[in-house]
């Protein structure tokens, strides 16, 4: 990545991304609570509880943080603000929050009306978001690889949600949804939307915050096209000929991303920090998830735990611990500068969220991963894993909230 590509003057108001980043951990905590009361969520892929937990994590936690991060990164990368950014942020946030809650309640209780209303709300919300962000991406003059990845991720999200809503309609709003298209929905959501966006963000934030060398130019140019082309080819071939052979392209792309990130992290020159630890775990877990796909037999739950909790959640946690303190610092710096106050009053990143607090969360997250993986083979641990997920997510929320408190305290102190 290059700082020349960044236009931090275009950074939106802090509330635009922060409302998403502070809401997301609450959905993850809710997923943990569901597992505590319905431990069968970790026993079979096709229970209502499993579907509810999966969508609390993918829509409530992952999509929520990614929508927030996109609204922050896009104007900074492209140099142009999203139209009516505060209004867009508030509307999409409400739509995503209410839509996810309704859909998940519908899944958990097998309630057709709630499933239909939740799907409709999410379709409207995602469409609005995709149109606004899509137009901004098309207008972007930046040729930065992250901008291309964001566009690809958005397409994958639309395909995911269309497949999901199509499945719901096909089954006349009844769970579960055992169908050949279900795997396509899962893979377009996880390998398409989640990985593509994380790759795009990684091009930026891994070198910037983890002080690694840049990702190789060739990789920045071809990895996302390879991944998405692989998914598209696999989808068509699977439906037409019932074979998964083209999926090897997707596996290749995922492994290359994980291996390159780990390799870059080995070449960094500083002492480890929490984000680095989270990202190392994430890349190892991504490799594990790929291995779970390659194992003979059905290992959907193992793949889900490794991918969603192990890879995606770890990567997002690590990212949040850099992005949130940095944004708070940036906004404090800008606000105090505008009021003519010397920026020495602005707390540093470690004062915004303490290293010890983040490290505590990291240890709890590792415990959660261990418990969740063990629970797949030893179901008696499922409730404990659910409790660990809930507590870990609440600790993440608390840590981020402390950052927001520092922001308010410094602003208040600067104006009295």
């Amino acid at each position, binding site marked *: 990545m290059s700082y*020349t590509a960044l236009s931090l003057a275009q950074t939106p108001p802090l509330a635009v991304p922060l409302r998403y980043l502070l809401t997301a951990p609450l959905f993850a905590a809710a997923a943990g609570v569901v597992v505590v009361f319905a431990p069968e969520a970790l026993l079979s892929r096709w229970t209502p509880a499993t579907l509810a937990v999966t969508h609390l994590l993918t829509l409530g936690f992952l999509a929520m943080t990614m929508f927030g991060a996109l609204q922050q990164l896009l104007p900074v990368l492209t140099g142009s603000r999203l139209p009516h950014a505060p209004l867009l942020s508030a509307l999409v946030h409400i739509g995503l929050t209410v839509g996810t809650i309704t859909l998940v309640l519908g899944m958990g209780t097998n309630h057709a009306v709630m499933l239909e209303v939740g799907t409709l709300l999410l379709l409207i919300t995602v469409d609005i978001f995709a149109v606004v962000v899509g137009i901004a991406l098309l207008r972007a003059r930046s040729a930065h690889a992250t901008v291309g990845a964001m566009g690809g991720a958005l397409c994958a999200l639309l395909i995911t949600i269309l497949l999901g809503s199509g499945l719901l309609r096909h089954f006349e709003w009844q769970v579960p949804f055992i169908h050949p298209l279900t795997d396509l929905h899962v893979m377009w959501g996880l390998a398409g939307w989640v990985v593509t966006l994380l790759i795009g963000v990684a091009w930026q934030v891994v070198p910037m*915050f983890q*002080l690694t060398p840049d990702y190789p130019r060739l990789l920045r140019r071809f990895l996302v096209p390879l991944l998405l082309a692989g998914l598209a080819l696999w989808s068509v071939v699977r439906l037409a000929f019932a074979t998964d052979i083209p999926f090897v392209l997707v596996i290749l792309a995922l492994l290359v991303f994980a291996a390159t990130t780990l390799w870059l992290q080995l070449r960094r020159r500083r002492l480890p920090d929490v984000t680095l630890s989270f990202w190392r775990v994430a890349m190892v877990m991504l490799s594990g998830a790929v291995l779970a796909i390659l194992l003979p037999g059905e290992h959907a739950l193992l793949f889900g735990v490794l991918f969603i909790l192990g890879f995606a959640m770890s990567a997002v946690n690590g990212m949040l611990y850099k992005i949130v303190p940095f944004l708070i610092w940036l906004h404090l710096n800008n606000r105090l500068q505008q009021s003519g106050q010397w920026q020495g009053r602005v707390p540093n990143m470690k004062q915004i969220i303490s290293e010890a607090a983040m490290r505590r969360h990291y240890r709890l997250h590792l415990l959660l991963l261990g418990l969740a993986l063990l629970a797949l083979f030893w179901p008696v641990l499922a409730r404990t894993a659910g409790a660990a997920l809930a507590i870990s997510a609440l600790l993440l929320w608390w840590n981020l909230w402390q950052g927001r408190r520092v922001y308010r305290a410094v602003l208040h102190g600067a104006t009295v």
Partner: protein
Amino acid sequence: MAREVVLDVSELEPPEPLTQSLAASERLERGDYLRLLHRRRPCLLYDNLVQRGFASETRAGRVVACEVFIWRVGDDEAAKAARAAAAMLPPADHL
């Protein structure tokens, strides 16, 4: 006699390079210029420097990717020395 103050922020994490660069700039005495060694072009720094009354020139570095020469506006001696030092390095167009 102009004096060069060297500050290497190439292994610091954002926003430390910015805060340390600004603090070091503020400490410059008459005739001094700051030679900042950075891993990248510091896009946030420039507006901050202008607002505080500093001028700068950016070059591609030899040891690190980017070097920024910073002096107080109106300090002709520092400006001349900084520009002479910057001229020894290649342009930073590709950064």
